[in-house]
Each structure stands twice: as C-alpha cells, then as structure tokens.
C-alpha cells in the first residue's frame, strides 16, 4: 500500500504541492488529476524518490521510499524516456538491470510483453526507428518489466490509437487484479472514469476534491437530462434550478442544479407528444473536473 502523508514541496518560494495526503491500497487504481502545472509530476517525482519533499512522508508498505524499495516500483514518465539510439532489447535490458533483474528474467519478460503487444519483430530494432505508438509500448514495457508492486503511470495513453488504448487499459486492469497499486494521471477524463476507483484533483498543488469516484459523483448534486424530441425549450430554460439548455446534434442536454429539479422538467416535457427519450444521468468526471478546477481558479 502506498501512503502519501501531508506532503508539501517548495521550489524556491513557490509551493508546488501543498499538504497532499492519500492512500493507494493494493489492487487499487488511483487517479491523480489536475491541469498542467498542478503538481502531478512533482508528486510522482516525490513518490519515486527523485525529489525530497519539503515536509511530509511517502511510504510503500510501511517503509519510507528509498533506493532499497525502488526495484519494486514501475514508472512511466509523461515524456518519452527512452535512449533512442539503443535497440528495444538493449533498452529493456538496461532498465531491467537497473531494477536488479537477471538477464534471463528480463529476456523472458520482454518476450512475453512483445508478444502481448504484437510487436515481436521490433526486438532488435532501434527505438528511434519505431512509431510513436510503438515507442510508447516499449516505454510501458520498461515500466512493468519488473512486475511492480507500485505502478506510476503519467499520461500512459499519449500517442496511442483507440485500439492500443484499449489494450493498455486491459493490461493495467490485469496489474490491478494481481494486487499492484496503480497511480495514474491523464488529461483524458473518460480514461480516468473508466477504471479509477479513487482520485484526487489538484489545483495549484492543493487537493480540491478527493475520494471514491462513485461517492464524488453522488455528492456532486448537479445532474444532466438528455431529451430527444420537440418540446417548449423556453419553458424548460425558465424553470428554477435549470442551469443550461444545450442543443446538440441528436438531442438536447439540460443541466440542472439538483435531483429535485428533474420532476419540474418532466412536467414541462410530458406536455409534448413527440418525446422519444428522457434520460437522467450523473455528470461526467470531466464536468466535475472543470467545475472544481474553475471554482478554485476563480476562488
């Protein structure tokens, strides 16, 4: 289990991370969200020991993270962190050895992963000769070659097409099922929503929202109503508690303040004979994110 306890980091006089605390249990996927410069990378760097926190501690299975435990951590950086002049085999051997693995074990694992990602033929190819997507696969392999207890994924889907995103997600879920703790960051909220159970949203280094995704959605009182058909739009717009009415390609999206407004909207809609759909949904994580980040910036 990973514990981040009241961690603060200053760069000069600038507070990059402000009293951040969270826990990631074994077999849990945790989302660390925030706009650019929110403090995500600094947090990751503190977790893997690249940066010393100004205050606070980071523990993995009750042990303070230092070079005695880093062999059990896998880290995928946001930018490509590959030595592009090396071949795939040389690169993975290099990083695997740095994790304290034997050459035999590394080769066995490498063959497994190359097969899994359908790129066996690239084993002897130089990394610079590979496409962006395949480079990302190699980077991912280098992060998981040691079957990490803690897997840190900073924007893992960068440069991947939807098929490969799906493949990565599957693999990440497999790691979760095998008991690894996974921390994950992405700008793509739909990815986070798909498999993060817990998350924290950072704004200027400070947590503005944290907890379990289900609970966050539940606590977020605003709802969305999808309507298909003809109805009195002005009447809906003028209802108290209706925040907005947006015409989209195939339907209308009505955003409301709370669950109690649903009934009021329904009363207006049912007057029409041409309604084919009336569906109430929880807001997306993207909306919650935008709302929370917006509030904090305004605040």
């Amino acid at each position, binding site marked *: 289990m990973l514990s981040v306890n009241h961690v603060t980091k200053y760069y*000069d006089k600038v507070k990059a991370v402000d009293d951040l605390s969270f826990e990631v249990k074994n077999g849990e996927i945790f989302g660390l969200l925030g706009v650019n410069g929110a403090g995500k990378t600094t947090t990751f*760097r503190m977790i*893997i*020991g*690249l*940066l010393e926190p100004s205050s606070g501690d980071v523990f993995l299975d009750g042990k303070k993270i230092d*070079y005695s435990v*880093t*062999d059990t*951590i896998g*880290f995928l*950086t946001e*930018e*490509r*962190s*590959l*030595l*592009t*002049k090396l071949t795939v085999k040389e690169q993975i051997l*290099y*990083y695997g*050895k*740095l*994790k*304290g693995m034997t050459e035999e074990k590394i080769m066995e694992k490498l063959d497994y992963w190359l097969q899994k990602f359908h790129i066996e033929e690239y084993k002897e190819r130089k990394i610079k000769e590979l496409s962006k997507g395949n480079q990302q696969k190699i980077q991912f392999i*280098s992060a998981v070659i040691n079957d990490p207890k803690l897997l840190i994924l900073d924007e893992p889907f960068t440069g991947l097409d939807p098929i490969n995103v799906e493949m990565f997600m599957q693999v990440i879920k497999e790691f979760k099922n095998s008991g690894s703790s996974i921390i994950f960051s992405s700008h793509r909220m739909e990815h986070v929503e798909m498999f993060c159970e817990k998350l924290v949203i950072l704004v200027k280094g400070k947590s503005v929202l944290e907890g379990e995704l289900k609970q966050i959605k539940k606590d977020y009182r605003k709802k969305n109503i999808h309507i298909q058909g003809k109805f009195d739009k002005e009447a809906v717009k003028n209802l108290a508690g209706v925040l907005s009415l947006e015409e989209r390609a195939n339907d209308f999206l009505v955003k409301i303040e709370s669950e109690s407004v649903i009934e009021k909207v329904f009363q207006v809609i049912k007057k029409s004979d041409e309604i084919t759909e009336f569906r109430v949904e929880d807001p997306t994580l993207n909306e919650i994110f935008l709302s929370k980040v917006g509030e904090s910036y305004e605040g």
Partner: protein
Amino acid sequence: MKDKLKFLTKQSLKKKIDTKWFKGVNILLLVLLLFLANMDRVVTFFGGDFEGEKNIYVLDEVNGFDFFSNTFLASSKSLEEINNYKVLKSSLSLESLKKSLEENKEDIIVSLSFDETNFMKAEIISFDEVNMMTKQMLISSLNSLKETMAFQNSGLTEDEILSLKTPVSVTSTYLNSEVQGENQELIASLAILVIILPCFFLIIMLVQMIGAEVNDEKTTRSMEIIISNVSPKTHFLSKIYASTLFVLIQGALLLFYGFLAFLLRGVFAGGSDSLMLTGSVGEILQVVRDSGIINILLQGLPFILLLFVFSFISYAILAGVLASMTTSIEDFQQLQTPIMLIIMVGYYLAIMASQFEGAFFIKAVSYIPMLSFLLSPVLYTLGQITIIELGISTLITGIFTFVLFRYGLRIYKVGILNYSSTKLWKKMFRSLKRK
C-alpha cells in the same frame, strides 16, 4: 547498489568502446602513427626525381679535390638515401661542363681557383637552384678546404695542424646532482610530444564524451528512470569511472601504436637487430638514454601516473557537473570552451618551461590542480622540480579531486533533473549548500 554501479560503468564504457567508430578511429590512429614515424621511408619507397644519380664536377686549380671530396661525402652521408651524390674531378673546360648541365640538370659544377688574399675562391654552378641542405654542405666543405690550405701555408707541421683542427675537449661538470645534463630543450620537446600532447587530446575526448552522454540521458528524460533506480552518486561515479577508464585505455592504445610505429621503423632499417633505430629517431633516443632521463622518469612514474588519473577524474567531474547543468548539447559545447582554454594554458606553459628555466610563475602554476598534470611532469623531467615537489603536486590534485567530487555531486544531484535555465546559477549555488 555496487552491482548497479558496476553495471552502469560497464554499460557506459561499452557505449564508448564497443562501437564501429571507436574501432574505425583506432585503426586510423594506428595507420597515421605508423605513417608519421616512417614518413621518410614511405617517401623514398615511392621514389621520385631525388633518386637519380647526381654528379658534382670539380674543376680543381688549387689541388684540393681529395680533401673537398672526402669532406663533402662524409658530411652528406646521413642523406645518402635521398641524395645519391658522386664527386668527380673534371678535366673538361668550364664551358663544356656548363653545356652538359643543360642535359643533366641535377648536376653541379664546383670551380676552385686561387685567390691572392683569401687563399682560394669557388664558384658553384647549377642549372636550377641547389637545395639548401646540399648548398650548406658544399660551402662547409669549401670552408674546411680553405682552412686546410691556410694551415698548410702557415709552415705548421702536420701534427700541429691536426691538433688545431681537433675540437676543444670540453667536459661539463655539474655540482648539483639533480641536473640532468644537456639537451634540455630536446627532452622538453619529447616530454610534450609523448606525454602532454596525447593527454591534451584525451582530456578533450573525455570532456566531450561525458558531456554528450549526460546530455543524451537528460534530453531523452531517461535520466528520470535511471535516477529513480540508482542514486545520483552512483550514476555520477559510473560516468567518472567509465570515462577515466576509457581515457586510460585509449592512452595505452596510443602508446602501443607508437611502440609499433618505431618497431616498424627498426624493421625497415633492416639488419639483424630489428629494434635498431636509425636516423634522427635513433639519435634522439640515444640522447634520452645518455641523459639518464629514463631512470629519473621511472622514479617519478608512480606520482606521474597518479597525477594523470586524478586530473582525468577532475576533468570528468567538471564535465559531468557542467553537463548536468545544461539542458542541451549546444549549451554544453559553449561551456566546454573555458575548459579547453584551461588546458591550453597548461600546454603552452609546458612548452615555455624549458625556455624560462626556473621561472617562479611556471613553478607555482605546476601546483594548481587541472594544470599540474601538464606542467609538473615536464618540470620534473627537466630537473626544475624535485620528486618531492612532484609528490606535493600530486597530493594537492588528489585532495582537490575529492573536494570537487564532494561539492560537484551536490550540483549534479540538482542539475540532472533540472530542465529549465531560469535562475540556473542561483539554483546551482544554492545546491552547493545542501548536503
């Protein structure tokens, strides 16, 4: 962590040595050194106009042909491989000899005649300009002939003339036991050629290699993965060890190539002793042998080697620290210029050491780390500093290297993960205070 240090060092060294470029460059270096050491042999091997027989016709009115001919042939002996001269007494007239020069343009006519006030006078006639070396030998032989004629006319006996012509016997006695004799400038030139010049190039290679490697890891962000698995200290040490090892291997290879080049020269010279060296190289080595410099060098060798190793490490540390601070190879290349200038200062002072014997400034600079490895061995070879002073210089560089590593590591730790050049120097100075 020790295994990881070993692995990183091996990996870094492999990256430098196990490449087609390293092998290619070394083959080229070997070929070039073989060529440089045997250049004259190569030139004569392919032949040219110089090979043809050249006649020197002497029109002798002073009865000095035998003396002139013997003197000239003796002095031109060392050049007989490239100048095949024959000295002939001619009974033909000057005009017919001049005509023959139009066909045999390499031939020379030397006309000797009496002179009332100066004993004799001479005229050298050729079709084209005579090369400087040959002309010098001709003039020198003519001067000797004139001298002999003067002595003969003086009424001195032959023994007296012989005694007069024998050079004065001079014995040099030095009361200072540390003085290594004459030929200091030659020895200094040799020390610069054999020790300083290769070191100069090796340091440049070392600085460039360590800079490129650190920069490559930084710019590709693989540094983050590496440093998340090994400490910056381990990483830094691996770079220092690998580049110092590389320099020592390359230095040893250069020495080996040099040895092969001279060995080949000996083989070219022929004879039963294949190690026999001929010509100027042989003479130089003879001077070195006679001067006793080899014994002195052997005594100081442990200090000299230590001084080199410490200095290589110092430059590796400095290059590593500077590379860690920069965010691109272009920035590093700019920072490299002052390092090159530091080495240049040492190099030129080493050259000046034999001209300004006992110069206080040069001696003082020989204690300064990063310059001492260029100056101290030369000053020691010239007898301008003692083995104790060489030892002190080595010790100072050793201590400096340790301190440089201790404080350099603090900058390195911060620098390798810094991607911004904003307030760079402030960040680096602040990192010096952190333990």
